[in-house]
């Protein structure tokens, strides 16, 4: 048996050769050389040599065959992995078991307390922290998507230094410390003269402390705030009327009447997550008696937002007229004797700008004023919320009105933020750069070269002036910075955040900085960097944060035990603050501002707003947010100039036609999108698009609109020149059709025929059902009206089936899962779409695929318009797999890839699916999604970074299979396993929380066991408003909806 041994030996040797771990033998084929050059002398030795060669050759042949077998089965060589197995497993750590850590997230002035899921050390999913007042257990889509930003492959990974050739070269922290440290030392020596430090909104106590120490060491430096997401107008308004440090917060608990003046408090304005929950609580209705107590929402705005879509009455006006309408309202309210003004009120009343109201506006404001006074008389709390886009005086006036209406300290609360550091705005930076008083700019996680109003010309002015930029990407400011340093993501760094109500959370990292250099973390948090800039000492974030709290609280209050408690709960208790509460008493400033208030501009008005998806552009490289359809227009991957039908007609444009918009010598070319509900002669422009070279996702997405911003209040600018440009840029919406009125196409400038227009409209369909409070009282079972076939007449084919093996799915599970979605609470904010994407490993498919309707989202938010074409009401309806008990998709699958579970789930067996797509055709709700390509192998979804985000409990689907909502079956199974381990037969109500339910800021989604009549979901299904969509088809959906009840003012109906 020499042969096998021989070949085995050869086998190993060649494997080793292949691995490169062993030098190739000098002579593979002894004698082969002589074979090649035969001569008379060698001919004699040739025979034994060939003999040997033959044996060896046979061995090699076997070996190579074996190797071929090896390599064909594993063509892809496994990468070298460094495994550090636990010799002793850390306590509480069970591989495969997720651990949650409390931390917090900030955008603008909003702070959300979070619980972040960590899978074997990788943060994978963001959830809200129920203990935190800013999130109440929910989050918004920005926080949801922030986990993807951590794994963004385009992140700035190492420090870069700008070379003499104007290009960035990779550097490292040693060089930074040495070279940049020297420059900083020099500047510090000059007390920071000529230096501007640009920071975003700072709500972190430690950061503020660090800023103060910076101010001490760099007294001549200017601190500039650049943060389009900040509530700076509201803060300015509060300070105008209630003194420096005054900060407003709105509270809707118990509020019966809300008047939103250009405020998107349910969407992008600050504290939207908390306000959405409070608003939704005010719309909770179980019976007609409750409905009477429901809150009423008035909205006055130029652009239909999530808030406007919720409004019971909406008045579309130009952005510049909103202040005038507020003044008109104030004028009427002040005439009431119940509305008391503080001293000095009379001058103020006289200074109110006089506006002539159109009859419609007059009626609206009159009704609103009467409603507010009635509420005041009947002691029903009300609130006037002024939107962030409005100038400071409008906010101040709003605050004053709230106090005058007795809502102060209840619906509107002012508090003193005594820790705030005095800062200045971008115009100061621009002026300083222009006059040469600022020569060095330090930008910490800000991007003034991109997001400053175009009028300031900062993109040009900053060139050569940016000393250092700390950023997540080599962004527009980073590209011109002498030093571009990588910023740590909030999931990688220590920090703390103070919410609007002074609740403080410790931001704790879940993972060490992902990117390292020379074995050390390559990124720094803003606090760490600022501490170094301030004092030349490189201190780590943990010491800074913990050190701050140790100092500020003192030995008496601080203990390691308390610290661990804070980290565990995510909320710091017992922070000492000054007890004074500011009140709106200083009317002089407001009176001056009112006198100086500019009248509404004429001509085309440009209304800039934070994009509901990308905010100010910071999320531009986030695929989840780019692909998430806009809550109302359903646009993905692009922004557009939103215009009304009338304006589009006037400009002679249809959707996707390019507009040339010029203002003050600056112009942009942007495609138009007809947005029903938009005020005439206004053009709403979302910010945050048109990023330049920051990443694969962001590039070529939308148009930069900051360019056109100008004036003291850059959000609303009148007098733009607008014309049809002639070319087109295709932008794609995931929902092209969406009117619930026959014959009306809301996206067309053409007049729809009054009657039935077979090509466009359709007969009324009872999909979204809604009524008014009056209608509800008259018809408590209104939600049942509209079924084509009454429930008692619905017959199933299975009913007269007697065969035991054939029949409807046997629903024999003890627990039966079901869901309700309350349309009275759902605002259509689309946070659930992103949460579902994060939880269920749903791929991003890209613009071209969305263009062909191939988006993969398991939840879509259907939006329908109803009513007049120009000023329609909008209704939203989350649509996801309805888990029909007699699912039409199941019986048509030829391979049984989709089947019913005994617990009533419509399950999908991905590895059984062959992709006939018959199920998708037969699904009346069209909620099944097909992997037309191998989306999960696309670099956007499958790069070494993005892979770390994947939820290990959910299959990553491959090409050619159907997927759809599973009711988060992995969460159900997890809960069942835990219940089983605990010795229980059933899972307790409320233990299973689906991803969409978890994220929902308005708590519109209820999930649970419908077999148990005591569960929340069963209670919700008993609600008279409960109805199923398309139940005429006898699908028996497990997901049902609670019909919407609007609360219009009878006077305005």
């Amino acid at each position, binding site marked *: 048996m020499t042969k096998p041994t021989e070949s085995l030996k050869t086998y190993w040797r060649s494997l080793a050769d292949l691995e490169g771990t062993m030098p190739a033998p000098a002579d593979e084929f002894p004698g082969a050389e002589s074979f090649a050059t035969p001569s008379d002398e060698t001919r004699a030795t040739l025979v034994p040599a060939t003999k040997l060669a033959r044996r060896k050759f046979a061995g090699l042949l076997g070996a190579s065959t074996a190797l071929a077998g090896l390599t064909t089965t594993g063509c892809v060589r496994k990468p070298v992995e460094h495994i550090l197995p636990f010799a002793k497993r850390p306590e509480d750590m069970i591989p495969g078991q997720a651990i949650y850590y409390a931390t917090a997230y900030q955008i603008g002035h909003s702070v959300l307390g979070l619980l972040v899921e960590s899978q074997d050390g990788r943060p994978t999913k963001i959830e809200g922290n129920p203990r935190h007042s800013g999130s109440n257990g929910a989050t918004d889509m920005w926080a949801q998507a922030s986990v993807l930003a951590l794994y963004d492959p385009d992140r700035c990974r190492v420090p870069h230094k700008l070379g003499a050739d104007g290009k960035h070269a990779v550097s490292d922290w040693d060089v930074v410390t040495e070279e940049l440290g020297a420059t900083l030392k020099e500047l510090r020596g000059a007390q920071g003269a000529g230096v501007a430090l640009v920071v975003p909104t700072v709500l972190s106590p430690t950061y503020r402390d660090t800023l103060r120490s910076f101010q001490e060491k760099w007294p001549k430096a200017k601190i500039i705030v650049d943060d389009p997401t900040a509530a700076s107008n509201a803060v300015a308004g509060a300070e105008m009327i209630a003194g420096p440090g005054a900060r407003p917060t709105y509270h809707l608990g118990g509020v019966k009447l809300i008047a939103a003046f250009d405020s998107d408090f349910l969407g992008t304005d600050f504290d939207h997550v908390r306000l959405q929950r409070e608003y939704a609580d005010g719309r909770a209705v179980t019976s007609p008696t409750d409905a009477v107590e429901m809150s009423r929402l008035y909205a006055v705005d130029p652009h239909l937002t999530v808030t406007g879509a919720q409004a019971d009455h909406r008045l579309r006006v130009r952005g510049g007229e909103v202040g005038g309408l507020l003044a008109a309202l104030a004028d009427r309210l002040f005439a009431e004797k119940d509305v008391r003004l503080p001293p000095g009120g009379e001058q103020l009343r006289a200074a109110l700008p006089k506006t002539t109201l159109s009859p419609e506006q007059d009626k609206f404001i009159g009704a609103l004023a009467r409603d507010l006074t009635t509420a005041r008389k009947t002691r029903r709390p009300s609130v006037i919320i002024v939107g962030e886009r409005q100038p400071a005086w409008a906010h101040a006036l709003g605050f004053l009105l709230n106090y005058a209406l007795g809502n102060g300290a209840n619906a509107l609360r002012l508090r003193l933020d005594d820790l705030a550091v005095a800062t200045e705005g971008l115009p100061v930076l621009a002026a300083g750069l222009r006059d040469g008083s600022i020569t060095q700019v330090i930008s910490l996680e800000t991007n003034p070269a991109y997001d400053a109003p175009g009028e300031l010309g900062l993109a040009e002015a900053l060139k050569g002036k940016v000393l250092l930029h700390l950023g997540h990407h080599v962004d527009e400011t980073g590209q011109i910075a002498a030093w571009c340093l990588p910023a740590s993501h909030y999931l990688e760094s220590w920090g703390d955040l103070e919410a609007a109500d002074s609740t403080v959370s410790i931001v704790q990292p879940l993972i060490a900085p992902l990117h390292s250099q020379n074995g050390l973390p390559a990124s720094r948090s803003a606090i760490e960097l600022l501490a170094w800039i301030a004092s030349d000492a490189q201190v780590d974030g943990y010491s800074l944060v913990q050190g701050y709290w140790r100092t500020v609280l003192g030995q008496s209050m601080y203990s390691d035990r308390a610290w661990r408690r804070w980290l565990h709960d995510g909320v710091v208790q017992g922070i000492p603050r000054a007890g004074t509460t500011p009140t709106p008493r200083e009317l002089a400033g407001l009176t001056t501002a009112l006198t100086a208030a500019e009248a509404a501009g004429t001509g085309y008005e440009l209304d800039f707003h934070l994009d509901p998806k990308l905010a100010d552009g910071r999320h531009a490289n986030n695929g989840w947010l780019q692909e998430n359809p806009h809550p109302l227009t359903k646009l993905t991957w692009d922004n557009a100039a939103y215009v009304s039908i009338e304006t589009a007609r006037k400009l002679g444009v249809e959707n996707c036609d390019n507009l040339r918009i010029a203002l003050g010598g600056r112009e942009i070319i942007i495609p138009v999108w007809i947005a029903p509900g938009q005020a005439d002669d206004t053009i709403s422009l979302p910010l945050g698009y048109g990023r330049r070279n920051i990443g694969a996702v962001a590039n070529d997405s939308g148009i930069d609109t900051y360019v056109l911003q100008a004036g003291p209040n850059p959000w609303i600018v009148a007098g733009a020149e607008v014309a049809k440009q002639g070319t087109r840029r295709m932008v794609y919406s995931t*929902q092209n059709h969406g009117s*619930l009125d026959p014959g009306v196409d809301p996206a067309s400038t053409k007049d729809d025929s009054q009657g039935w227009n077979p090509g466009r409209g*359709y007969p009324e369909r009872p999909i979204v059902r809604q009524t008014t409070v009056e209608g509800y009282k008259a018809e408590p079972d209104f939600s049942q009206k509209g079924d*084509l076939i009454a429930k008692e007449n619905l017959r199933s084919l299975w009913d007269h089936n007697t065969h035991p093996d054939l029949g409807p799915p046997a629903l024999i599970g003890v627990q039966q899962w079901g869901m309700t979605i309350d349309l009275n609470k759902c605002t259509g904010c689309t946070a659930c779409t992103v949460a579902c994407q994060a939880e269920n490993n749903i791929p991003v498919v890209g613009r071209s695929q969305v263009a062909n309707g191939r988006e993969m989202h398991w939840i879509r938010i259907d939006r329908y318009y109803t009513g007049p074409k120009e000023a329609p009401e909008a209704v939203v309806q989350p649509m996801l797999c309805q888990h029909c008990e007699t699912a039409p998709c199941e019986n048509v699958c030829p391979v049984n890839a989709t089947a019913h579970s005994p617990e009533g789930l419509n399950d999908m067996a991905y590895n059984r699916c062959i992709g006939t797509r018959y199920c998708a*055709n*037969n699904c009346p709700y069209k909620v099944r999604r097909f992997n*037309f390509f191998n989306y999960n192998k696309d670099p956007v979804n499958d790069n070494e970074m993005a892979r770390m985000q994947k939820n290990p409990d959910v299959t990553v689907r491959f*090409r050619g299979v159907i997927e759809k909502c599973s009711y988060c079956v992995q969460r159900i199974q997890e809960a069942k396993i835990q219940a089983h381990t605990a010795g229980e037969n059933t899972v307790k109500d409320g233990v299973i929380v689906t991803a969409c339910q978890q994220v929902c800021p308005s708590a519109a989604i209820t999930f649970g066991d419908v077999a148990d009549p005591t569960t929340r979901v069963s209670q919700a299904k008993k609600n008279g408003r409960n109805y199923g969509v398309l139940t005429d088809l006898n699908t028996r959906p497990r997901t049902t909806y609670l019909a919407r009840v609007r609360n219009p003012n009878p006077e305005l109906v």
Partner: protein
Amino acid sequence: MATAGHTHSPPGTPGLEPHGSPALQAVDRDRLDPLTGRKPLVEQALTFHDITEAVARPIEEPNNTRWWIAFLMSLSLLGVLGISLAYLFYMGTGIWGLNNPVAWGWAIVNFVFWVGIGHAGTLISAVLFLFRQKWRTSINRASEAMTIFAVICALLFPTVHTGRPWFIYWPLPIPNQMNMWPNFRSPLLWDVFAVSTYFTVSLLFWYVGLIPDLATMRDRAKTPMRRFAYGLFALGWRGSTRHWLHYEKAYMILAGLATPLVLSVHTIVSFDFAVSQLPGWHTTIFPPYFVAGAIFSGFAMVLTLLIPLRSWFRLEHLITIKHLENMAKIILLTGSMVGYAYGMEFFIAWYSGNPYESYAFANRAFGDYWWAYWIMVSCNVITPQFIWSRTIRRSPLALFILSIFVNIGMWFERFVITVTSLHHDFLPSSWGYYSPSLWDVATLVGSFGLFFTLFCIFVRYLPTIAIAEVKSVMAIADPHYHPGTDNGPGFAQAKEQH
């Protein structure tokens, strides 16, 4: 159609006078067949050997330029199919224009189209056989070949349209260790059985019918290769009475088996739509309507193929104007049935009072795909009405053009049913629009390449007309045939005297 009265009608009965032009009279004069009182099915005075020569000669002559041109063109289209499928397998179904509401596009349209075409062959060979329609004999072979090739094309599409075609065998009830059975409730599974059964029976039927002719080819073969190949498939046929007895029994049994399949296969294909609950698909009229449409399109395709074939292979005396006329009449009948179904669909959509249903049909005619609907109506309802004209139905050129229109119209019928129903269904939020990609077009064109390549091979190597069967319907085959009389009036008179 045959009435006994005609048998004894004297020649020159006014009702049987030809209506054609005087030029035509020489050929088409209604000289009575002594047995049935009809025109002869084989024109000119031919002997049995003449028939054999006429059919076998074209396939024994090498280097037929016209054939090579046709074959190479077909082959290059087949190459297009190969490339399209290779790219499809590499990339995924996403290369087609499919999207979320429209999950079935051209692939399914093509499937139903080809299955429909596959109907005429078996109808001609089985149903007409059982009804003793002797005129079928000269066209059944080619039509059956067409059926088989069309079904091959049809089977291709459901296979490649799946997301993971490498698992296409999963719908087959193959016993496996997991005890996983296919879902017997799914119409797609019924399709698998219906179409594969249809294919198997059609193939067998065709092959059994070929055996005597294969033996003829074997006997005439001049090269050992041909002799071997034809001999192998001729199964040792020697033409003995016992062989003929068995053969005719087998043929009759297969005809009996195939006849219900003609009705069942498209019925079941229509279930793919009718069993679902999509407005526009969920329609009880679909089974008869689909079968009528299938026969309609099948006969059109037979005309498309045979009109050039009879001319190029000089088979005008075997595939006569009368054959074409008969087929045209069937097209007129089934075309009118299809037209009736279109009308009935609209009536029911209105009469049912179901808003989704009425919307679906209004949307078909006036919605985004109005053009497809009106192409369909013009081609399928209006075009066949020209057949009422005797001149048109006796003109091969006119019939050829007409058949092309019917083919186009029937393809559009399937497009209209599949796509317009899907693109706007229940929830307006999920409505979309479907347009095909280049690869959709390439795959359809390529499937024609496959079809014509197979058909070219067929006409090159197999007798395109059933030699043995045609001989049986010649006057000469009649035991009472009198050679001197040219099966004309003299013979009839002679018979009268008996």
